Each structure stands twice: as C-alpha cells, then as structure tokens.
C-alpha cells in the first residue's frame, strides 16, 4: 500500500507519457492547428508574391541582381531580430508571426524559381518564339511549366523551414507547438510536453513535405525521376 502511494506521489518526469497526451489533447490539437495554419498561410502568401517577383526578375534582367541581393541580406537577418522589427508596428498578434514567416519563405522560393526559370534552355525559348508564342503565352505554356521543378524545390524548402520557424513565434505568444515547448521548459522542464511538441513539429514537417512531393508528382507527370 505504501509502495503504491509513493509511486503515485512521484509520477516522475518521463520522456513521453500518454497520460499527458490524453489529458491535454485539446491544447495539443489547438497548437497543431495554429502551427499548420500559420505554415500553410505563410507559404501560400509567399508563393503568390514570389512567383510574380521571380518572373519580373526573369524578364527584366537588370532587376535580377538587386532582387536576389536584397533577399540574401534579409535572409541573413536572424528571425528573432526580424520579429523584433515587426512587432512594435503590428503588435503581438498572429499577423507579426505571419509577416516574418512570409518574408523568409519568400526568399527561399524566389531564389529557386529564378534558378528554375533561368535553366529553361535557350533553344526551347527560341523555338517557342518561332512558333509565335507571345510573352505571356510563352510564360504560361513554356517557361513556368519547365521551371516547375524549381518552384517545387523552393516551396518544399520553404515549407519545412517555416514549420521549424513558427516556434520562434513564442516571442509574441503565437508559436504554435513552440508554445508547448516553451511552456514545458518553464514548467520545470516537463519532458513529456517538450518531447510531444517537438515530435509533432518534426512529424508536421515530414507530412507536409511528403504531401508536396505527391503534389509535385501530380503536376509534373513527365518527370519520372525523383522530384527534387
């Protein structure tokens, strides 16, 4: 009897506990939902901005250098500093996190889309012109489809790194699963909480990456090799 009592009194600090997961499923699910929604929205907005920007860099050659240089500099700015610049203006809401995430994702995607567009063979471009394609027709029928592998690479990189980056949103109180990691740290290093959130974070990155690979296979049926 006393053994049981002492066992109950000291639940220990296990690396993983189903008890924790069961008791906190609401909190965990909410965190996963916030994490996934922040990632999804950030990558989506980033794609919508990055693709036109890349086309601009592709069409107007003198702009390519500056666009890539500026993205390089912004990318060097640490995430914490970037959030620190945004927060005083946008407050401590999800918007701040979203803007920061979009900026980083944007740079990764632009870099890869520009690379993808630049590797369209000049012969193909000339052939398209010879066939009477105009600027826009060539873009949508020739250039962008051929640059699709670059787009996919950029989106995949951006997605995986955005999933990891969301956790820094803890700074303004919207870090998705990072919120749990940080709470576990403050809660006297509650390992089960930290571990659960970390594993879910990595799992989310892997699942989203696999989904994107699948999407890439579907939209580029001609590339039978591994989608890179």
């Amino acid at each position, binding site marked *: 009897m006393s053994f049981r009592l002492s066992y109950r009194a000291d639940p220990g600090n296990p690396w993983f506990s189903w008890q924790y997961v069961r008791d906190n499923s609401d909190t965990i699910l909410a965190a996963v939902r916030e994490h996934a929604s922040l990632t999804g929205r950030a990558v989506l907005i980033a794609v919508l901005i990055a693709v036109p920007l890349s086309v601009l860099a592709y069409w107007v050659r003198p702009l390519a250098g500056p666009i890539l240089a500026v993205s390089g*500099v912004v*990318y*060097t*700015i*640490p*995430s*914490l*500093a*970037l*959030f*620190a*610049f945004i*927060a*005083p*203006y*946008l*407050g*401590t*809401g999800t918007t701040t996190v979203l803007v920061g995430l979009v900026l*980083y994702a944007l740079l*990764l995607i632009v*870099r*890869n889309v520009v690379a993808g567009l630049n590797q369209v063979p000049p012969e193909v471009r000339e052939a398209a012109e010879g066939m009477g394609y105009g600027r826009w027709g060539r873009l949508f029928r020739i250039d962008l489809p051929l640059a699709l592998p670059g787009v996919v*690479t950029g989106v995949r*990189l*951006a997605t*995986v*790194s955005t*999933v*990891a*980056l*969301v*956790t*820094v949103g*803890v*700074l*303004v109180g919207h*870090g998705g*699963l*990072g919120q749990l*990691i*940080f709470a*576990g*740290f403050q809660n006297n*290093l509650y*390992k089960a909480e*930290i*571990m659960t*959130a*970390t594993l879910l*974070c*990595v799992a989310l*990155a*892997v699942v989203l990456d696999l989904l994107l690979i699948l999407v890439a296979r579907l939209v580029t049926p001609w590339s039978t090799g591994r989608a890179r």
Partner: protein
Amino acid sequence: MTVAANPVGQAIVWINDPLNWTNPGGMLDRLGEHLTISALAVALGCLVAWPLGLWLGHVGRGGGVVVLVSNATLAIPTLALLTILPVVFASGFGKTPVVVALAVFAVPPLLANAYTGVRQVDPEAREAARGMGLSGGQLLRRVELPLAVPYLAAGFRTAAVQVIATAALASFVNGGGLGQIIRTGFGLGIAAGGGQIVAGGVLVAGLALLAEVVLGGVERLVTPRPLRRGRQRLGRPRPADATGNA
C-alpha cells in the same frame, strides 16, 4: 494589440543611453555573452564536423550521410533543441547545453563543405600524389586539405553566421546573449519596451550581417586567385541554407 508610438525614435534614445551599454546585463555584457557562446559553438562544430567531413571525402563514401544530416537538422526547430539539451545534460541551465545545441546547427554546413571540398579535388592531382609515393594520410594532409581550404572557409562562414543568428534564441532558455535585450523589451510590453525591442533587433541583425561581411572577406583571402571568379556559394547544398534562421 498595443502598438508603440514611434519605435525607431525610442530605439535611438535607448541606444544612446550610456547606462544601457555599461549596466550589468547591458549591451556590452550581452554582446560578450553572445560572442562567447557563438565562438565556443562554432569551435565545437569544427572539431566534430571537419575531421569527419575530410575523412568521408578522403575515402569517398558517406555522401548520403552528409545529406541526411543536413535534411534532419532542417526539420528540427532550434527552440526544441535548446530546450531539450539542458534536460539531457541534467546540469541545469549553464552555457554547455546552449553551446552544444548551437554546435549541432553548425555541423551541416561545415560537414557538407569539408566533404565537397575534398571530393572536388582533381583526381589527376590525387593520382600524381599517389604516384609520388604519398600515403593516404599524407595525401589528405598535403594535397586534399590545402585544396579544400576555400570550401572549408565557405562552410565556416555559413556556420558562423548561422550560429550567431541562432544564438539570439538562447535567450528563451535564459542562456543570455543579445536576444535577451529583445526578450526584456517584450517583458516591458510593446508600448514601453518598443524602443528596446527594436534596438535589440538592430544589434542582433547588425552582428549577423557584420559576421557575414567579415567572414566573406576571409573566405576571399584564403581562396587562391584563379579560383575566385564566379564561385560565390562554394558547393553549398541549398537545403542547409535554410537552417539559417530557424
């Protein structure tokens, strides 16, 4: 949603207050902490990654391992590693766990570049060295290593900039560094601490950009002149690039 009136103005005022420089926990203290943690982490990373990368490159195997390491660290949030390592070390919240966590993120670029650096050595140069009677170890030390130096420098720059950027997150686990200034600012609330938040951001970003520029110069210096043109990001695989700010 409290928004500061004029964060930039407040930041200039905050930076111009001499007490904010010299106070305990002021800018100079935090800068010292930041640089110490970063230097130790990069040194630890080099100690592990360079011998391994050079050796893997020398024997010409393990390319898969190198890619795997880069991809795996890409998905692990920095915050998670910073939080987990103090538990593993069970030594409380000293500098050691933070340094080890940061070193983990320094390894992929160092490893990848050391590996590529040795692999890209002209096979003919290797054959010639063999023909001159050099043993495996001598070949690595006298031929492959010197030829890999530009790559090692490129990896060092990427890793160092990354660690300096990531070290800002050490503040979440009370590890000190310049990130602490930002965190303290948030602790005051955005209306009161807006200036300090922006000032901290300027310091963190400035340090990262400064490291990038200075180490870029070092990289140029150690790259033999004929190899300099048109090789900005020496053999750096893109995936590792993305770990920079996580």
